[in-house]
């Protein structure tokens, strides 16, 4: 039974998915990556509906701290008020529209629009304007800055929604909370975003970046030069545990790829890359985790990598270091990525240096791995121009077996959620593995 026989009111998404569990075939029409109509429908069905990542608590640590970002095209700024409350405003003066927040980040008690000098406080109220007598009584009270419909945080991650009826964030995050906890609990004193943003454009559809973050299969071929570099330093750990690990569905379209890391991790898995004299320190960090969480959870936190997707477009990759990566969709064939390093507050000196090095050698657009991911995505987008003569992308890997870390269960789960959102129907429950127990007849 293919998705086409669903009794959906609309097939805005499922018309592009060939999900044939009898034959063990899962294919996605490449029009999902090229069509302006699909892009437009995504804006309404997904980006106007879901919770979207804005920033981290540590970026607005003190009263008056603010950060300005464009999120799905809307100009916004997040500010911690003098009263300590965090608010997210549309960055537009209610008078004639100019941006009232004019810097990417900073600290302010007031925001004065540079056009006509209307001045707002950090709760958005209009305090003063030149020649108030030009307006009637009570006019000022109607001119506050507009807040986004929804704003909430979990473990320091701030999310917004443009959907007034969005369910609470904690419900939306569903099973992803377990993975956010596995990341945040690695710190003794909480996490912070390090200064220094990776901000880069990729000439490809935003979903290609999501797929790439969920894909373990490309690790060895695409990133061969990274592993060769680590090996040249005398390093390299091979992953041994493939069966039973891999992709998981977490509800609401969130997915994760988890497995034993074939590389060192600052918390807390030693590798030659870190240098001999760091062995004791890393062992001590690991011992602390075991004390705090027990051997099983500590091992999971220290030895495993986690590539987590919070539907639709937030990636938290806990790999050689931790990156928080947000993808802004600009057009069907263009995205802009914002990525940051997340680090425990207590990390300083050599430990912090080790993390930064571990981050930028692999993650980040100047490293030995991410540039090749960007190249792959842009190349796929070029390849998509062969559509409709070459119509489908295949995402069938692992349908006929218990999934491994190089299979594609998590990518299929993401697409099923995408299709459901586009159709306007509930996201289906997680599938049982293997999806196609009977040997496939292709």
């Amino acid at each position, binding site marked *: 039974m293919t998705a086409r026989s669903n009794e959906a009111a609309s097939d805005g998404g499922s018309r592009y998915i060939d999900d044939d569990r009898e034959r063990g075939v899962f294919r996605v029409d490449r029009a999902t990556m090229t069509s302006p109509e699909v892009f437009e429908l995504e804006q309404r069905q997904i980006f106007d509906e879901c919770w979207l990542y804005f920033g981290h608590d540590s970026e607005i640590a003190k009263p008056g701290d603010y950060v300005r970002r464009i999120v799905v095209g809307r100009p916004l700024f997040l500010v911690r008020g003098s009263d300590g409350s965090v608010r997210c405003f549309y960055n537009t003066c209610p008078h004639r529209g100019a941006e009232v927040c004019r810097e990417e980040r900073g600290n302010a008690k007031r925001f004065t629009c540079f056009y006509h000098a209307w001045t707002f406080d950090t709760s958005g109220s209009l305090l003063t304007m030149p020649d108030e007598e030009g307006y009637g009584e009570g006019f000022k009270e109607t001119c506050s800055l507009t807040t986004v419909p929804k704003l909430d945080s979990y473990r320091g991650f701030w999310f917004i929604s443009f959907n007034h009826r969005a369910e609470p964030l904690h419900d939306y995050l569903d099973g992803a909370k377990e993975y956010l906890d596995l990341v945040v609990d690695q710190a003794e004193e909480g996490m912070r975003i390090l200064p220094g943003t990776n*901000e*880069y454009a990729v000439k490809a559809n935003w979903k290609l970046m999501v797929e790439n973050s969920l894909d373990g299969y490309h690790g060895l071929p*695409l990133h061969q*030069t990274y592993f060769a570099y680590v090996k040249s330093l005398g390093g390299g750990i091979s992953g041994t545990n493939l069966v039973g690990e891999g992709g998981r569905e977490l509800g609401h379209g969130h997915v994760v790829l988890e497995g034993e890391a074939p590389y060192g991790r600052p918390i807390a898995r030693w590798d030659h890359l870190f240098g001999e004299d760091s062995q004791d320190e890393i062992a001590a960090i690991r011992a602390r985790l075991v004390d705090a969480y027990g051997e099983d959870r500590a091992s999971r936190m220290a030895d495993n990598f986690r590539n987590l997707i919070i539907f639709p477009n937030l990636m938290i990759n806990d790999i050689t270091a931790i990156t928080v990566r947000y993808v802004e969709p600009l057009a069907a064939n263009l995205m802009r990525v914002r990525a940051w390093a997340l680090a425990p507050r207590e990390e300083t000196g050599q430990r912090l240096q080790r993390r*930064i090095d571990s981050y930028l050698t692999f993650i980040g657009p100047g490293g030995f791995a991410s540039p090749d991911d960007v*190249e792959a995505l842009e190349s796929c987008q070029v390849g998509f121009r062969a559509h409709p003569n070459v119509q489908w992308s295949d995402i069938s890997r692992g349908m006929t077996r218990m999934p491994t870390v190089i299979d594609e269960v998590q990518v299929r789960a993401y697409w099923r959620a995408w299709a459901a959102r586009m159709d306007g129907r509930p996201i289906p429950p997680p599938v049982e593995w293997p999806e196609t127990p009977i040997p496939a007849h292709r």
Partner: protein
Amino acid sequence: MTEALRDDRIELRLAVEEFLYHEAALLDEWRLDDWLELFTPDARYVVPSTDVPDGDGSQTLVLIQDDFQRIGGRVARLKSRRAHREFPSSRTRRMISNIRVLRCVGDEVEVTANFVVYRIRRGVNEYIGRYLYTLVRTDDGFRIRSRRAELDLEALDPHGTVSIIL
């Protein structure tokens, strides 16, 4: 003004310029092994993030922070034919100007210059910024102890990556 016009100052600046142009030519010609030989064993190559151009990689996330070993690793990667972003190699053209000697301390010469590095592959990307070098005078000419490329770009848009040596 009189300081800058002294013969030995002019000579030094000319020598520095020649060195920088020579380095640029090696890189534009993808003669990476020759380029690697320009570094001291304690060398560092840093490219800060676009939003924190004065960032140092000890506390701030930067784009590139290589010691001599990693510079070598970067060269090995680019020569391997498996650095897919640079296979086939892009064409590059480095334009270097506004070269100034900031100060001399012992055998070290601190230099700044402006750059535009054009990378051409399916389009033209410009990397714009300034260099800060610490060069060391040796019997075989200058060697690079520290090489820092601060980008003026607000983001790597449309570039996507820093896949070349800047």
